[in-house]
């Protein structure tokens, strides 16, 4: 199913309301949450990073995943996105994610902006962003002319002059912006951002959060992983705490 759908509704959906999920054709139930996680476990060898996590996020919500560092937040996100081996059940808008496929999540509406950005340093910033479109098209021309790509480029207009530069030569803050733009270019229903402000100066961190707020207001479900809840809660209306690999749901 092609997740490239016409523009999402302009106003954010209230938690739990079915409005957000109606955009996806053929969803399983009228009130399918954007993300439903049941019994998710992630282990590295003998060490269990995430233990039996169960929670769900409704469409249009902005959820902060908080908790001390080293307690499993990133592992949780990576497990949900399918990038590392996991046990348990993950559903994105009612569709069950197969556990072995690393590309499934990206193609079904969940895009991850990973910790430490993971850009392609030798490619230009523009190419980096364009590759965000890879999960829904294989044509360069279509990607370049598409709405998601255009939206992504417009997110941080101050970078327009630097787009042709190699991504590896950009500053940390600029790289974070490019990473978010790449995430947005995939036209996600759910954008999950892991530690967006790691190593960034105060001014840049605020700018990044302003952009995330914009994205949320346009209707995308947002998940933000942050160690310090203070900043994340300025834009999030929901919070999930992870301690010792265990998820504690907090309204």
């Amino acid at each position, binding site marked *: 199913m092609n997740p490239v759908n016409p523009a999402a509704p302009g106003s954010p959906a209230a938690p739990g309301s079915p409005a957000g999920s109606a955009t996806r054709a053929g969803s399983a139930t009228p009130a399918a949450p954007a993300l439903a996680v049941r019994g998710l476990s992630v282990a590295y060898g003998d060490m269990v990073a995430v233990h039996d996590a169960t929670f769900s996020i409704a469409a249009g919500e902005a959820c902060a995943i908080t908790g001390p560092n080293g307690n499993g937040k990133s592992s949780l996100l990576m497990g949900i996105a399918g990038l590392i081996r996991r046990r348990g059940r993950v559903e994105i808008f009612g569709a069950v994610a197969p556990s072995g496929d690393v*590309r499934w999540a990206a193609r079904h509406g969940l895009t991850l902006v*990973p910790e430490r950005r*993971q850009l392609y*340093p030798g490619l230009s910033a523009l190419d980096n962003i*364009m*590759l965000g*479109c890879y999960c829904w098209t294989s044509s360069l021309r279509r990607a370049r002319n598409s709405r998601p790509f255009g939206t992504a480029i417009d997110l941080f207009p101050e970078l327009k002059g630097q787009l042709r530069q190699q991504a590896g030569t950009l500053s940390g803050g600029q790289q974070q912006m490019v990473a978010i733009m*790449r995430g947005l270019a995939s036209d996600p229903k759910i954008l999950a951002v892991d530690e967006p402000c790691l190593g960034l100066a105060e001014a840049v961190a605020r700018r990044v959060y302003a952009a995330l707020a914009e994205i949320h207001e346009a209707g995308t479900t947002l998940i933000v992983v942050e160690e310090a809840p203070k900043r994340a809660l300025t834009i999030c209306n929901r919070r999930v705490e992870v301690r010792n690999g265990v998820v504690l749901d907090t309204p």
Partner: protein
Amino acid sequence: MKLGNLIIAGLTTGSIYAVFAVCVSVWYRVSNILNLAVGDFAMAGALGVDNLYRVKSWPLPAAIAATLAVVIVFAYLYDLVVLRLAQDGPRRQEGIVITFFFTFALSFFIDGVAKILFGTDVHAAPALWNGGSLTVASSLHIERAGVLVLACALIIGSAFWLYIRYTLGGKAMEACGENPLGARIAGIDTRRYRRHIFVGTAVIAAVFGIVESPITGFTYLSGATISLTGFIAAAYGGFRKPGRALLAGLAIGILEALLGGYVSAEYGDTVLYAILAALVLGWPRAMGFESAVSG
């Protein structure tokens, strides 16, 4: 004109080095593995076609098709079994010392198989374009096979460049080498790209082996020397820049020809290697080394 002919001869052998250097570079960019077996695939192509055509009397097109098919299947299986285990299995291998040695072992293996199948004599695939050498501008001679080699190099090189520059798939392929995790996050199947490039590299090498073997002839050990020179030329391109690897290959070919022609037929190669060593030691950054693999 001696200089002109030397340069043309140099360009011909140089383009062979260049092609192999590009294969090594591209493959490295995508997979972070150094393929030392390119020369052996070339040798397999040449000797395979020769064996089927000359010894078993198959028609030439069938011989070529069959040989390439075998190369494709073998390369595919090798990546599927060995490289997948090496890179994605429970024990991930990293570092130049390891990336090197898998294909190094592979080249031994291919040489061993070739020795059994084709014996130890010098052979070559039949010339694809028959006739003596062509004469251009009344004093420059160029082998027909050499023209074919250059033409193939140009075609394959341009096709690849266009692919990288102007298609999303090409950029995705580059992304695989730049940051495999980042690529997977964007939904790129890094394993599949890697496999396709490995097989592609093997086939291109085999094709070149077939095309150029009439000029030099191959034994079951020739692959090792070609792999080595391809590797060296790719190293001068910093391993990540196929364009520079191409130029480096051509330059080495021309230098080799000039040294052989003007300095000494016997010691020409030795002087060439001494010069290459001196260049690396004296100007490593200019030669493209600091940007390359780190241990």
